[in-house]
């Protein structure tokens, strides 16, 4: 620590503990680590959740408080970090509705659309498939306007059919569709049609 600091900065007790103090904290952290690893062995989801994430929070707080010396640091530093956490949480809570709600009239998985046989029969299905692909790439403008009526009809069919597609999507472990022209990125969530 520089001499200038000593004159201007309140650093009392900052890191001035004996080594044994830190070794005890480390031992507590190791016990918590053992609990984290042993938790899932009980095969109880609630206990696993607590021993994994509850204990992780406790471990993080201990490291921050005693190893990073946040408990002796100026209080505003803690506030600074908490504000960063809060703003990050706000950003994600604003975005979460779009990511977590995959249902509704204006939101569906274009990539998972399977055209009904009836549409294929009238020769409109292929057209819609191509249009869907264009829309997914943000290139559907003139083409879309030209066939608005057809598109609306297809959407109507598509939405009814999407229910099935969405149900399939809910359990992808059981159904891994082969990549097709309209299903190259199963995880992607393309823009909604109106």
């Amino acid at each position, binding site marked *: 620590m520089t001499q200038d600091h000593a004159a201007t900065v309140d650093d009392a007790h900052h890191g001035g503990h004996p080594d044994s103090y830190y070794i005890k904290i480390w031992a507590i952290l190791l016990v918590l680590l053992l609990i984290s690893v042993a938790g899932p062995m009980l095969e109880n989801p609630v206990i696993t959740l607590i021993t994994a994430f509850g204990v992780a929070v406790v471990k993080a707080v201990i490291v921050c408080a005693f190893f990073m010396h946040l408990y002796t640091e100026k209080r505003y530093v803690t506030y600074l970090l908490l504000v*960063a956490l809060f703003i*990050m949480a706000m950003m994600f809570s604003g975005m979460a509705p779009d990511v977590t709600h995959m249902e509704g009239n204006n939101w569906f998985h274009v990539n998972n659309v399977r055209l009904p046989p009836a549409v294929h029969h009238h020769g409109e299905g292929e057209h819609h498939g191509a249009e869907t692909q264009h829309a997914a790439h943000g290139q559907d403008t003139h083409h879309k306007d030209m066939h608005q009526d057809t598109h609306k009809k297809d959407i109507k069919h598509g939405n009814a059919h999407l229910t099935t597609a969405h149900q399939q999507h809910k359990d992808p472990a059981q159904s891994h569709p082969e990549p097709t022209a309209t299903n190259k990125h199963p995880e992607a969530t393309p823009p909604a049609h109106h």
Partner: protein
Amino acid sequence: MSDKPIATTRSVTGIPTGRLAIWWILASEIFIFGGLIVTYLMFRFHHDHWTAEAAHTNTWAGAINTFVLLTSSLFAVLAHAAAERKDTERAFKFLWFTIAGAGMFLVVKSYEYTTEISHGFHMFRDVFWSFYYTATGLHAVHVIAGAIIMAIVASAVRKGKELQRVEYIGIYWHFVDVVWIFLFPLLYIAK
């Protein structure tokens, strides 16, 4: 006043400006890792099959690495305590113990990556694995950066210079430890 940079010789906030800078860096890191972790959680809730993918991560390797990082954090704080006592030799020694911890962490991580990739669990197998490699890879980059900076700090400390930097790099190192504390249950325990 000395000829040192202003960041190391004054404080208008009640703490050394260098230390305040470290806290600001960590506040920005909260957005980087916090964003990644929250995005992972949002996707995980909607993709049940990620549980099956997560079953292929090596829990014991993750646990060993958690132990290694917690121990290296102990070494970092012991180096800081030694620097506070002006015991430069001891501070130097514990800084290098911490660097050794970083090396051990990377060895275990390399073993994990090699095993997983050779068994087909590469980055493009599934979005779960994309998250896995992005999160752990970004964390590993922080470990490497921390180890390099710590070696630079250690060389100065041995000469009895810039002892305050032992604390600064220590705070950063503890943050890297905290990030791993959360990555461990997310990627290795929740299966």
